[in-house]
């Protein structure tokens, strides 16, 4: 590898993954990034984008028209505005839920994994017990205990976020604990021990930074799960009042009776919003997961310029080097600048599939 340090920008999780990707994996990552980008931008610019407020009422159940592009709901809300505002609620819940569970899970995992003993045993049993509950049931119980089921904007968002947090903490806890136990036996941790370093110093300076390297992956995958859990809570009626904030799950719930009456617009749009948000986050998470693993990562074929190359692997067909004309040049330029990635995403030497 290069001895010079890469600029910080390219060592950031997502960008470094983008630079390393080729072919199909790159396409998936970019599709995910675009969807997630749209999702986040919508949330950020909701006040600008939405034609009406989320709690503004009009005539109920109007079909899509010039005044209401996606029609109105049975409660008289504008569907387009509700979907756009809903993105904001979703992002808020994701951020709060993931940040809370991240802090609690990482701290508990580090301490439990490094110290071991009875503390470790108790925490593992608790985590397993939480796992044993169906996620949604747990979230509902939490939601009821926190807010009594229904509440204001922040009350609702917090209760949704905390319910999700309770489900997620064991996941972070387990990953970090397993990583910590592995690192505990590494020679560099023993080296620190031999030097006489104190336990907190070993945990925070030596273990922490090495144990948290896989977190961006869980983080993205959990975000998509958070969207789903929140939508499910809303659908079941444990979400947020329609006057406090827009919430996709709640809107879906209200659209339930519309379907038999042939009113499709109230259900389809929030539904698509959920699907796309989850799809985008999952695509980012999954492709980052594959790209971080050198065994799953697809690579450009070596020496693509020489004409007489033959694959040597037993049985497997050699990668289809399709457009051999400008392959190497486009690929290398794409690799050097992430901006050029979008254009060359689809063609290029496709070597996406690796591993068994």
């Amino acid at each position, binding site marked *: 590898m290069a001895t010079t340090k890469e600029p910080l920008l390219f060592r950031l999780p997502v960008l470094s993954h983008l630079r390393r990707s080729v072919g199909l994996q790159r396409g998936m990552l970019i599709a995910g990034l675009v969807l997630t980008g749209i999702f986040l931008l919508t949330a950020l610019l909701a006040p600008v984008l939405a034609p009406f407020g989320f709690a503004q009422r009009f005539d109920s159940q109007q079909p899509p028209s010039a005044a209401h592009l996606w029609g109105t709901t049975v409660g008289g809300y504008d569907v387009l505005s509700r979907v756009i505002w809903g993105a904001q609620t979703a992002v808020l819940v994701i951020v709060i839920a993931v940040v809370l569970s991240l802090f609690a899970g990482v701290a508990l995992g580090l301490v439990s994994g490094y110290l071991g003993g009875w503390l470790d045993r108790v925490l593992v049993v608790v985590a397993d017990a939480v796992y044993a509950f169906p996620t949604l049931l747990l979230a509902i119980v939490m939601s009821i205990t926190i807010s009594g089921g229904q509440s204001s904007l922040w009350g609702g968002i917090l209760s949704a976020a905390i319910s999700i947090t309770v489900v997620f903490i064991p996941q972070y806890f387990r990953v970090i604990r397993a990583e910590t136990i592995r690192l505990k036996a590494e*020679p560099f941790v023993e*080296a620190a021990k*031999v*030097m006489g370093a104190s336990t907190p110093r070993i945990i925070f300076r*030596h273990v922490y930074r090495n144990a948290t390297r896989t977190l961006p992956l869980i983080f993205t995958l959990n975000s998509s799960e958070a969207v789903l859990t929140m939508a499910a809570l809303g659908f079941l009626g444990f979400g947020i009042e329609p006057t406090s904030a827009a919430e996709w799950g709640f809107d879906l719930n209200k659209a339930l009776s519309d379907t038999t009456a042939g009113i499709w617009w109230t259900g389809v749009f929030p539904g698509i919003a959920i699907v796309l948000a989850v799809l985008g986050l999952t695509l980012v998470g999954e492709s980052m997961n594959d790209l971080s693993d*050198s065994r799953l990562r697809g690579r*450009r074929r*070596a020496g693509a310029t020489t004409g007489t190359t*033959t694959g040597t*692997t037993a049985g497997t067909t050699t990668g289809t080097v399709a457009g051999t004309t400008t392959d190497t040049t486009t690929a290398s330029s794409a690799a050097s600048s992430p901006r050029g990635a979008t254009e060359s995403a689809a063609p290029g030497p496709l070597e996406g599939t690796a591993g068994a």
Partner: protein
Amino acid sequence: MSTSTQHSGTPHNEGPATEPVLRIDHLKVTFATDGGDVHAVDDVSLSVAPGEVLAIVGESGSGKTVTAKTILGLLPETAVSSGAVLISGSDVISVSPAKLRQIRGQEVAMVFQEPSTALNPVFTVGWQIAEGLRSHGNVSRKEARARAIEALGKVGIPEPEKRVDYYPHQFSGGQKQRVVIAAALALNPGLIVADEPTTALDVTVQAEILDLLRDLRDVFGTSIVLITHNMGVVADLADRVVVMYQGDVVEEADVATLFAEPKQEYTRKLLAAVPHLGRNSASAGLTERAHQGGEVLVEARNLVIEYPGRLGSPGFRAVNDVSFTISAGEVFGLVGESGSGKTTIGRAIAGLNKVTGGSLKVLGHEMLNVRERSFRPVRRDIGFVFQDPASSFNPQLTIGECVAEPILITGDRKGPDVSRRVAELLEAVQLPAAYADRYPHELSGGQRQRASLARALALNPRLLIADEPTSALDVSVQAKVLELFREIQAEFGFAALFISHDLAVVDILSHWVGVLYKGRLVEEGIGNQVMGGPKDPYTQRLIASLPVPDPAEQARRRTARRELLRS
């Protein structure tokens, strides 16, 4: 490149009549990696005659293993190769997968480095040998079993009829390697590719496996391609040697010529770097134990260390009734094979393992029932160098931060004073001060081990424990690190416990040598006396088994070893 023959045919064989078993022509292998294309093998040509042992030697990254894997078509998907690898007429590189399967096993077989991972733990060894037979034609269950027994007998496994039904874990390491060789032999291939076949084994076992391979050649006429980095193994077994460096063939000669008069500069350097038992001994000229006037830093008396067993089963006694002392300024070399307890002793002195019984006094502190809190102040006087330089540094910290870590922990110095001390230390181990800003993965293995030494010396310790510090390094790098270690020890004057399985390496550094065998200290004495005239039967066997990098001398040692074993 010494093999630039333009004409096809058999360029390396004296007798043009014999068809070579293997011929490699202008082989190139390129890997796709994150850092761009890597040319692992760059234009290699060689051939192997029937009944010949060809050794391919080189340091890590020389392309020797990639060459070996190409012979069996075992390259990963990221590799692209060109050229020709001809095994009895068919080109492995371009042949169809079905034909390749036929060639594997029948024409050429492989012996892997690590016998414990090359065997599948859930099947009996007989099943695994028979698997190769069954996949090459219709063999009845009974016949396959008979041939598996026969193959096990060939490689010298006692009671093959019974042991054919054993699982891999019921064999010792050396026997497992025999089973792997038996599986390779099952179809009587003309060629065996052995990739570092003895590297994972102890010296005494290594000698047995080398004898076995030699017998195979002599009795069955099997050709062997031996991939190794160990010049002693080459001197012991090979007929002809190909030296590789960075994907290229540097030199090719028969074994006697290569060791006697190496032509290329690289080969000369490589041979000079190989530690040779009895040369360059640290204890040369000593008649009595040195440094006895100084303070006794470590004193073990009837030391016992046990690892707790599982519930109900007794613990494993790793160290049993061991007594020794290390005085100030002395280098104590601890030699032993795997499982002898040498690392356990080193770790116990550093407070990483608990002492079960007896007494171990480290810098005046009794380690039996020691409390971490009371021992922590003593730690600053103990430096520790770990075996694997790659994993003994926190990958998230720069080399400078890693070396500064012990200084920061004690809080002796602050701010610019720390970085000045780090620069000083790096200079002492001959690393440029600019390396302080690099991350561990940006350094080579040898450089990392120097940095590791710098870290161990950061607080001017009175005692340094080095646990196999050079066994993960290439010979040429090892030679430099050993030289550095010797200089620094002379300069700083600390006492050291030097742990290694390599007798020659221990002899280079240590004034006083202890030999461990199954947790017991069987012999101790002045380095060159132990190496030159061992008294304990185990030490005698150990030293006789060590191959020396000189074919003529090794042949003599081999006969001497046989006589020793017979008596």
